[in-house]
C-alpha cells in the first residue's frame, strides 16, 4: 500500500495539480452549497480526496456531515458549487446533464440504501436497465444481465419482481445492476442500512469478492464494523475530510 498511517488529506492540502497515474477519483477543494430560500447550507467545505484504482474505501462521519453529498458529487449525480473533480483523469466538474448521464452510465455503479429498483420490473430487466441507455443490443444485454445476476447468486431469481425478493436479494439485484456496465467505480451509500446484520455480512462478503476481482469501491457507512471491511477509512466532519487512515484489519495485515 502506498498510503502511510495516518494519511492526511484534510483541507490543509491541495490537489490542484490534478490526478496522478492510477488515480480514479481526485477532488480539489470541492464545495457544495445548498440554497434554501435565503438560507445557505455548506454541505461540503473544500474536500480534497485521492482514490486509486482498485482501492476499497469506507467513508464515515456523523449524520449531516456531508457523506451523501460527497457521494453524489463523486457519482456525478450533482455538480460541485466550487472546486474540481477528476474522474478517471478527466475533469467532470463542468459537464452538462446529458454528459454527466453518459459518464454515470459508463463509469459508475450505484448501490443505494433503499435499493431503488423498478418495482414493476423483474430482476433481469432491472439489471438490463443501464445497458438500455447505451444501446447495447438486446441479445448481448440479456446475456450480460444474466451472467451478472448469476455471479451475485441470483441465477434462480431472474424473473422475480422486487416485492418477491428478500432485502438481501434486492440489494444483490442492485449490485448486479451496478456491475453490469463494468464501471470504473462502485459507489455504495449505506448499502447495509436497510438490512439485518446477517444479511449485511453476506452483502459485505460480496463487496469483498468484488474488490478481490479488482473493482474500485467507495462505501458510506455509519457502522464501524462495516467500515472495517474496507482497506481505508475516510472520515468526514462538517463538510471536510477530518481523517484518512487504513482500516484496523488492513493495518494489522501490514508488516
Amino acid at each position, binding site marked *: 500500500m502506498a498510503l502511510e498511517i495516518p494519511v492526511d488529506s484534510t483541507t490543509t492540502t491541495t490537489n490542484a495539480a490534478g490526478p496522478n497515474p492510477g488515480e480514479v477519483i481526485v477532488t480539489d477543494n470541492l464545495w457544495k452549497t445548498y440554497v434554501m430560500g435565503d438560507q445557505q447550507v455548506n454541505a461540503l467545505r473544500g474536500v480534497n480526496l485521492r482514490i486509486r484504482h482498485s482501492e476499497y474505501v469506507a467513508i464515515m462521519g456523523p449524520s449531516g456531515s456531508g457523506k451523501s453529498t460527497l457521494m453524489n458529487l463523486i*457519482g456525478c449525480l450533482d455538480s460541485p458549487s466550487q472546486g474540481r473533480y477528476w474522474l478517471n483523469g478527466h475533469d467532470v466538474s463542468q459537464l452538462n446533464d446529458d454528459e454527466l*448521464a453518459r459518464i454515470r452510465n*459508463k463509469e459508475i455503479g450505484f448501490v*443505494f440504501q*433503499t435499493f431503488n429498483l423498478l418495482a414493476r420490473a423483474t430482476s433481469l*430487466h432491472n439489471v438490463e436497465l443501464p445497458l438500455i*441507455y*447505451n444501446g447495447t*443490443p438486446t441479445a448481448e444485454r440479456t446475456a450480460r444481465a444474466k451472467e451478472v445476476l448469476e455471479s451475485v447468486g441470483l441465477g434462480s431469481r431472474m424473473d422475480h419482481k422486487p416485492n418477491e425478493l428478500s432485502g438481501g436479494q434486492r440489494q444483490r439485484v442492485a449490485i448486479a445492476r451496478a456491475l453490469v456496465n463494468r464501471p470504473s467505480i462502485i459507489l455504495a451509500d449505506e448499502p447495509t442500512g436497510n438490512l439485518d446484520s446477517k444479511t449485511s455480512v453476506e452483502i459485505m462478503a460480496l463487496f469483498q469478492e468484488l474488490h478481490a476481482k479488482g473493482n474500485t469501491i467507495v462505501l458510506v457507512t455509519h457502522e464501524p464494523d462495516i467500515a472495517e471491511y474496507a482497506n481505508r477509512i475516510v472520515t468526514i466532519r462538517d463538510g471536510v475530510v477530518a481523517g484518512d487512515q487504513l482500516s484496523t484489519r488492513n493495518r494489522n495485515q501490514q508488516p
Partner: protein
Amino acid sequence: MARSVTKLSLLGMLRRSLVHRRARSFSALIAMTVSAGVATALLTLYADLDTKLHKEFRSFGANVVMTAPADKPLAAGVLEKVQRALPADAVAAEFAYAVATTDKGTPVVAAGTDFAAVRRLNSWWQVDAWPAEGDADAAIVGQRAAGFVGDAKALKLAFAGRSIALRSVGRLSTGGDEDSRIYMPLAALTQWTGVAPSVIEVQVPGGAATVEAAIARLKQEFPELQIQPVRQLVEGESKIVDRTHALMYGAVVLIALTVAVSVLATLSASVLERRRDFALMKALGGSQGQLMGMFLLEAVALALAGVAAGFVIGSAAAWAISEGNFHTATLPHLSVLPVVLALNLVIAAMAALFPVRVLRGLQPAALLKGE
C-alpha cells in the same frame, strides 16, 4: 445501428410501461377514445349535414316566387324556359288565379295548376286524396273554401257569366291562404276563364348561396318578371345550418378541452407517481432525450390507440344518429380521420406539456436519498 437498437429498447420499455400500468393507461385510453369518437361522429355527420338539412328543407316547399306583371301574364313556354335555367333537381310549378263565385254566391279564389308538379313542390301540403293524372275536371278544395260551397262533392263555379262543373276529389289543408282556394287543372281554368298563369313557384335545393345564384340567373333571363325569394325560408334555412355548424364546432372544442384536462391529469399523475423511477433512470444514465422520448411515445401510443378505437365507435354513432334523425345512413368518412388524428395528437401534446416539465426538472440526487 446503435440508434435503432436504442429505439427498439425504448419500444420495449413502452410496451412494458403501458402493460405494467394498466389502470392508468386504460383511463387515458378511454379519454382519448372518447375524444376521437365524438370528433369522428360529429365530423362525419358534419360532412353530410348540409345535404341532409337541405333535403329536409325541400319539404317546406317553394323558396322562390316569380310573378308576372298584372297586365302581362306569362306566355306559353315560360315554365319550360324557367326549368331549363334551373338546376336539374329544382322543381317549378305555374299558377293561374281567378276570383269565381260558388253556388252559394260566395266569392272564392280558383287556382289552376299542374297537380303533379305541385305535389312535388309542396310535399308539406296535407291533401287527403290527389286527383289522378290527366283527370280534367277533378279539383281539390281548401279546408275553408269547402264552407263556401253548397255541394262539396259536385262543385259549380261561375266566372263572368260562364260556369264550370268540377268533381272535388280531395280536401286541402295548409294553415295558409291555400285553405280558402279551390285548385283545378290549369287547362280547365284557362279554358273556363281565359285567365293565363301569372305565378311560377320554384323550389331550389341548397343553401342561401345556391338560391341567390338561381335568383340572379332567373332575373337575368326573365327581366320582365318579379322574382323574390321566400325570405323566411331561405334565411331560416341558412340560419339553422349555421347554428348547427356552430353547435358542432362548439361541442368538438368543448369535448377536446375536457379530454385534454383529463389526459393531462392522467399523464401528470403517471409522471409524479414514477418520479423516483424516472430519477433512477436518469441516475443510471438515461438522458433527458431518452426519458422524454419514452414518455412522449407513451402519450402518442395512447393517442393513436384512441384514434383507432374512436374512429370505429364514432363512425358507428354517426351512422346510428343519421338513421334515427334523417332516415338515411351516413357511411364512415375516411377524410375525417386526419382531422381526428391531429386533434388527438394536439390533446396528447398539450396534456404532456406539464409532465414533461416535471420530467426535465427531476433531480436524481434529491430523489434517490431514500425515505
